[in-house]
């Protein structure tokens, strides 16, 4: 004769096993529904911590202007990582299909290095420059957007250098100078010129 408590225990365990099986089946079905393109996309490292309100300076080709766009971003506490995530958020806007200032797909900020006193070095990938649209205005909008977003949101930046795959390049796409350092104050005045344009 099997004891009653043993029967109850076995029944409960069978029920739990059945429930777990149903749950696993359900999750497997959801995983299959996930889009393959999303699986192939590069995965950025997760950023933890509270979100922070920042102001992005976004280029808009329509009027040929820079406009501000507030954003709440989860930014790392490290100053350098903070700067990198900030610019990656800006680039993400430009890579969006409805972008006001499209950048070539695959454009990336590889890293941002901060060096005292006041120097920020933005290292982009080669796609960013090699497939960037060519023209004085379209190139200077990109530069002004990057430099102003960085200097306005990361304290103490007075000069910005833009590299491509770790190397100096003469121009962005035939016009905007990349051979030297951008002075944050001069770019701020340029943004004021670009910003004041009536849409």
């Amino acid at each position, binding site marked *: 004769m099997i004891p009653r408590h043993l029967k109850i225990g076995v029944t409960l365990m069978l029920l739990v096993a059945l429930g777990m099986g149903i749950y696993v089946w359900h999750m497997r079905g959801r995983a299959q529904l996930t889009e393959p393109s999303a699986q192939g996309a590069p995965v950025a490292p997760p950023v933890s911590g509270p979100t922070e309100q920042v102001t992005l300076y976004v280029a808009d*080709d329509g009027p040929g202007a820079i406009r501000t766009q507030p954003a709440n971003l989860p930014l790392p506490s490290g100053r350098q990582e903070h700067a990198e995530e900030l610019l990656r958020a800006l680039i993400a806007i430009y890579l969006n299909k409805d972008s006001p200032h499209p950048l070539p797909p695959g454009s990336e900020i590889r890293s941002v290095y901060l060096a005292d006193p006041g120097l920020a070095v933005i290292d982009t990938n080669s796609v960013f420059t090699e497939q960037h649209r060519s023209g*004085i*205005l379209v190139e200077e909008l990109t530069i002004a957007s990057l430099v102003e977003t960085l200097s306005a949101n990361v304290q103490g930046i007075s000069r910005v250098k833009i590299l491509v795959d770790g190397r100096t390049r003469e121009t962005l796409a035939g016009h905007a100078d990349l051979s030297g350092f951008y002075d944050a104050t001069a770019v701020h005045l340029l943004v004021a010129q670009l910003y004041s344009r009536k849409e």
Partner: protein
Amino acid sequence: MVAGAVLLLSGYANEEKRISIYSTAANYTLPVVSRNNHDYVGLFEVLEPLGTVTAKVDGARWKVRYDKVEGEFTNEKPRAKVRGRNIDLPNNFLLENGRGLVPLASLSTLLPAFLGGPVNFHESARRVFIGNVAVHFNAQLNRSSDPPFLVMEFTSPVNPTISTGPGQLRMTFNREPLVPPGSQTLKFDSPMIPSATYSENNGAAEIQVNGSVPLFASFSNNGRRITIAPAPQPEKQAIQPPTPPGGPMPTLPPPSAVPSPAVYFAVIDPSHGGEERGAALSDQISEKDVTLLFARRLRRDLEARGITTLLVRDSDSVVSLDQRATIANAARSKIYICIHAASQGNGVRLYSGLIPAGDASRGPFLDWNTAQSSFLPVTQAVESQVAAELQKKQISVRMLAAPLRPLNNIVAPALAIEIAPPGTTVADVTSVAYQDSIAGAVVAAVVGARARLESGR
């Protein structure tokens, strides 16, 4: 004082002999000593920059070990043993205070034995090339500009010492493994820069450019390109044109009786050219073609109003940004106008330089990156006049600063004109009527600002 002068002169007369060694590990120069009327060099010093070297003296024998290769020499003997093989030296090995001196001529056999690879020894010039390190160059005269200039392209960055003398400019390459071109004399069939000669001596290579006018050199492309152009005729003003960073200041020759290059009131710079097409305005229209077309039109209209005009390029040729600035500054023009074209937007955009803070100008020498700063007020005044003339012709216009080279390197009022289509059709950017309207507005503004441009205020 007289004794000092004699000593100084004798020092120059007995120039120290040296040998230059070029390798992928290091390029270096060592002193050559003379013993018994033969040239010697310390073998330890030759090998040390190339790898790990140890040496010890054992009586009259000197044993040297380079990485895993052992060599043995005997004082006052013309024979050595390297990797267990005997090598005959042209003269005796000498041991002086623990230092092993080998005859210079023996390096062509000793070094391959120690290094296990090819060594090319230019013995008469005392230059040793270890492995594939040679820097080659070519020289081409650009005849599209007036006056023509010589462009020398090097396969690696170079930084020669530059000096000038009557009718010549000499570049001495002390640290670069420069090798001669096919012919040691290059002829350019130009009365201004007829030829250049290559020579090498005492551990250095030298290129001498011969000219019928004073010449000066400027560097670009990260030291891979040297442009040699007729020097501007010095005027009353003391300001020296800036030179690109990365090379020594050009040596401007003193005023002389040689004919001066033409002085132009305006320099027009059609951007891009050659392989550098600029923006693709459409499948058929390249920016470089639009800029040249408009520049020629603008020159025609300016000259019709009595304004002498120089085009930086008048053909489909490549001119670097540094060369453009050099040409403009050498012309001592009163205004520099750079032409661009774009498919984005409408009308005309006028740009002045985006000048960075800080100015490293020293006395009469201007900082290359901020040379434009003192001319910016006049630039902006002319820019406003051009904008006003364009508005009179109902052409949409916008004024901005731009990080656009070579605006910041120009020592004259300098502005850029970016021509966009008048409407939605990109091909209209090449329309004769449209370009004539823009050119007319620019000419009217330049003529209107002539007095101000001449005074520079």
